[in-house]
């Protein structure tokens, strides 16, 4: 096991001006489950591949266990990777696939087969040892890929969107399995996903990337409660945070004509700002900002009310969370009231968080 450090690590693909990964500084502690999350093109997969040695690092350094591996080939980094499409060898059996790293390490056949059987048992795949990947389902293939990664007990696990090819139900199951496996093995894990649900449920910490730059790194709760900028605020959380351009005067904003006091954190703030409100920070009540319900999505106990309202003279879409049994009907006129203690403020120009 080992810790992982990116030090100003940069990757610039030839023919482009903008780095895919721009001066990334990130530290993953020994045994930690770190999730890299971001939209397409954010550089998360490139950052993972730089750690694996599959992409050259153009500037900066990558360290594993305190050892500079920037210029080392992948096989000398002591890392194992699970690919998005599993990258199983289609002509080898499950047993041979799992044991492949041991074969490359020169381990004798009997020992390889013993260890492969043990790993397969751990993953519940012992019945499929003689099958080829084409005879397995997506979830089973994913387990074989996991088995191949864990058999040689690497210092670091790398996972590149390993659940993205599975259906929703299986994804939830495999998510729990991966979390349990990582907890049991205690191996440092770097996990890439664009799915924030995966990021929030799996990661000890989550690093949010956008356009190759690290936006924020922290525990899932911290990212949700205290997004460092407008991008993280909009990216983390589903449905996304409501972001409204408003004017702040003496610690209060006008929210569609309603004056909202924002407390001591921004008591002296003034000028154009962006008000961020999670759906649960908006209450559907009898007074407040008038809005018209467009869509209601019910999720068992809760419902999300998608509505439109006039804010600063512009039609703005807002989403509020309410109890499903008390949710308004589509087309109904409602009033939205802000919970000031749950409001976030961001600078209108830089997008950075204002206040604590």
């Amino acid at each position, binding site marked *: 096991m080992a810790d992982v450090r990116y030090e100003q690590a940069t990757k610039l693909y030839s023919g482009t001006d903008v780095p895919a990964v721009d001066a990334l500084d990130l530290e993953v502690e020994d045994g930690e489950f770190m999730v890299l999350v971001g939209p397409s093109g954010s550089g998360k997969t490139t950052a993972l591949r730089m750690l694996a040695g599959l992409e050259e690092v153009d500037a900066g350094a990558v360290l594993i266990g305190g050892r500079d591996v920037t210029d080392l080939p992948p096989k000398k980094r002591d890392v194992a990777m699970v690919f998005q499409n599993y990258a199983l060898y289609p*002509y080898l059996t499950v047993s041979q696939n799992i044991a492949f790293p041991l074969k490359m390490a020169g381990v004798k056949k009997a020992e390889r087969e013993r260890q492969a059987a043990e790993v397969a048992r751990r993953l519940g795949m012992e019945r499929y040892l003689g099958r080829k990947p084409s005879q397995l389902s997506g979830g089973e293939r994913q387990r074989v890929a996991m088995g191949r990664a864990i058999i040689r007990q690497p210092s670091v696990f790398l996972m590149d969107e390993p659940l993205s090819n599975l259906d929703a139900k299986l994804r939830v199951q495999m998510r729990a399995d991966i979390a349990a496996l990582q907890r049991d093995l205690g191996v440092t894990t770097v996990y890439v996903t664009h799915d924030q649900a995966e990021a929030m449920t799996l990661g000890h910490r989550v690093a949010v990337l956008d356009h190759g730059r690290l936006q924020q790194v922290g525990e899932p709760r911290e990212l949700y409660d205290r997004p460092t900028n407008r991008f993280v605020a909009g990216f983390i959380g589903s449905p996304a945070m409501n972001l409204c351009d408003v004017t702040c005067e003496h610690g209060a904003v006008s929210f569609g004509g309603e004056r909202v006091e924002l407390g001591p954190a921004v008591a002296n703030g003034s000028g154009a700002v962006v008000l961020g409100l999670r759906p649960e920070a908006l209450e559907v009540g009898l007074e407040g900002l008038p809005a018209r319900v467009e869509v209601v999505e019910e999720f068992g106990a809760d419902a999300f009310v998608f509505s439109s309202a006039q804010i600063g003279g512009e039609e703005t879409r807002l989403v509020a969370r309410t109890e499903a049994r008390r949710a308004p009907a589509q087309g109904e006129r409602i009033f939205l009231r802000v919970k000031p203690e749950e409001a976030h403020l961001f600078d209108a120009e830089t997008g950075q968080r204002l206040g604590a």
Partner: protein
Amino acid sequence: MRLRPAADAGAVSVPASPALARRPGKRRAAWRRRRLVLLLMSPWIVGFTVFFGYPLVMSVYLSFTHYDLLSSPRWIGTANYRYLFHDDPQVWTAVKNTLWYIAVAVPLQVLFAFGIALMLARARRGVGIFRTIFYLPALAPPVAATLGFVYILNPATGPVNVLLGHLGVQGPLWFHDPHWSKPALVALTVWGVGNTMVIFLAAVLDVPRHLYESAELDGAGVFSRLRWVTLPSISPVILFAVVFNVIQGLQYFTQAYVAAGVAAGQASQAADVTAVNLGYPQDSTLFYPVLLYQHGFTDFQMGYASAMSVLLLVVSFAITLVIVLNSRRWVYQAAPR
């Protein structure tokens, strides 16, 4: 109310069920579809019948006759085959030469084609130019390419021996030496390996990149990746190349015919391709198809030549079958998508 007797019931006219009424219509539609399919296939059916089926049947028939192209074929039973297996003094020389050529040329063709394809797949600059350079020889007409090789390998004036002479090496007699004539033809074959190379190149480029990356992370070096990723992935193409080139080897004619004739002509100062020259020097280039040609078109023993061609067809089929059956152990066939 009285029940109608059963016999009467049968006499009542019952309207046909809709399913029964539709049947003639369905049959007509099926026949129309079949007719359209046959119509669309007709060019191929005519071509196959005229240019493959009829000659094949005629060859089999003629193989049991004496036929000199001038008089009508005369039925002689299995006499041609008995002569072929027991009495023809040249046939085993031709078989040995052909098998030698296949045993040496086919592995070399596959190796060179695969090697060049690997290099081209890895090349980063000038890929287009190199692909063209390596493929161009395949476009050269076989006769012209052979003439060029006979000139290049001319023992006295050819550039290869001149160069070897400068290096202090006595060059061989190439097409004039029974020990070097077949290797020279193999060199000519390997030089024109472009077609096989293109197929290998497409296969190598088609190997998923993530398999290489995965193997690299699993600790595989360059040769391990070649052994455990590239070769299994392209094994169907290797099988195709082996079968295709073996069949080509069994039918090897033009280059051997031209090289022997021209080399013999050089030796006698008269570029005259005659029966005497076939297999020059000392029957070392007398391949099975060359002997077949000699019997058919020089000696006008068309019945016997037909027997030889029928045997060639059977042997080609048998060898292909053996290779394909054997390949199940080493060829990976992807599941149909």
